């Protein structure tokens, strides 16, 4: 049953990505821009923003799972938190890579110390530290406790970091969905929502895979321990 769900997810994901490629590069209208590079660069928006969304979602899951672990002491929560943190770091890494690729032709620079850029980088650093902490600790309840505490503090810190850094003049394009002055055209909105859904599905797939791998590791380790006792 589990295998079947995985297979279905994979097939759905394959087609979703093919469709999203078509939507982004063929279907959606080009933006009006001063030069061709800027027009092409805009396409990265459909991958940059969904990656950021998945990153935040993943870190929220780390937070919830960490609270869940401290409340129940169930190993499952710990594994969900680790899996989600790893995937979150992966997607924020994508954000940090795709951002500069867009910024170079449009802003003329790879990087600027603007609120969103800086807070994304700090967010990334927080969860890198979380994963490094786990690497340096031996497996056991101590590690689970300590990483859960860091998972909770890290997530509570995210809005504080963002709020404090926003204080500097921001250069990042405003969130187009929320602002009243300009909103995405119909086709662009549809394409964006489609890639967003695709990326969220990808997150779900990665989570299932990573979680299963982690439980498998647990089982193997347990069997090794039993063999040692004999």
């Amino acid at each position: 049953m589990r295998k079947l769900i995985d297979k279905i997810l994979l097939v759905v994901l394959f087609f979703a990505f093919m469709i999203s490629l078509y939507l982004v590069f063929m279907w959606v209208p080009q933006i009006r821009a001063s030069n061709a590079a800027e027009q092409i660069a805009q396409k990265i928006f459909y991958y940059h923003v969904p990656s950021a969304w998945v990153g935040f979602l993943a870190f929220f899951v780390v937070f919830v799972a960490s609270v869940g672990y401290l409340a129940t002491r169930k190993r499952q929560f710990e594994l969900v938190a680790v899996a989600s943190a790893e995937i979150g770091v992966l997607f924020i890494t994508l954000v940090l890579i795709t951002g500069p690729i867009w910024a170079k032709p449009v802003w003329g620079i790879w990087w600027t110390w603007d609120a969103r850029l800086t807070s994304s980088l700090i967010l990334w650093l927080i969860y890198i530290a979380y994963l490094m902490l786990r690497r340096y600790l031996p497996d056991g309840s101590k590690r689970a406790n300590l990483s859960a505490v860091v998972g909770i503090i890290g997530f509570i810190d995210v809005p504080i970091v963002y709020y404090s850094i926003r204080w500097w003049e921001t250069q990042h394009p405003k969130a187009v969905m929320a602002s009243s002055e300009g909103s995405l055209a119909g086709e662009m909105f549809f394409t964006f929502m489609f890639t967003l859904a695709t990326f969220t599905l990808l997150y779900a797939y990665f989570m299932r895979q990573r979680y299963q791998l982690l439980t498998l590791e647990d089982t193997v380790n347990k069997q090794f321990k039993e063999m040692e006792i004999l």
Partner: protein
Amino acid sequence: MRVALAILKKDLQMEFRSKDSILAMWIFSLLIFVIFNFTFEVSRLVMLEIAPGLLWVAFIFSGMFGLNHSFSVEKENGNLRSMALMPVDGGQIYLGKFLSVTLIMLLFEALIFPIFVIFYDLQLSLQMFLLAPVIFAGTIGFTSLGTILSAVAVHTRNQQILLSLLLWPLVSPIIIWSVTLTGMILGGEIPPTFTSLLIRVGAFDVIFFTISYLLFDFILED
């Protein structure tokens, strides 16, 4: 509260006998000033602009000694386990450690500040007294998170580097505001936003302290 005060008393006694942390922090800050002087040869005008940042770099880098020392001492002597076994709330132990680390760091800051003034030829004025609440608030924010993360990092092999990796990104809001506030004071003119900014740092302090206080129980557990 009694337990917290007992830990505070013990830590301060140890510190005043050995002077391990304070001396290391003080010398290290001095080194930062010296190295800085070699690496950036800048005019006095630029120097005044970067002085607030330099002061906080010295505080933060040196503060790591105090934080690392705070729990590595406990671990070496096997006290960490005894603390976990004590029939008191973990928050009490956190409070004691937090108070001792904060006091030692504030003392170090008071001792290094005159050197800073002399090296960078700052004009003394009554306004300088405003630095006291800024440094106080910034230090509390730094040590409140630093204390709990030091207790986390002490269980790893790479304690020193890991504490920096964990603490610096998390405490960045405090650093940003503290440097801004310090810059306002050293710049000469106090803008009207000063008080509201200072209150914000205080609010972050309260948030960081409360989270750490509540979560410390889980750190001690095995």
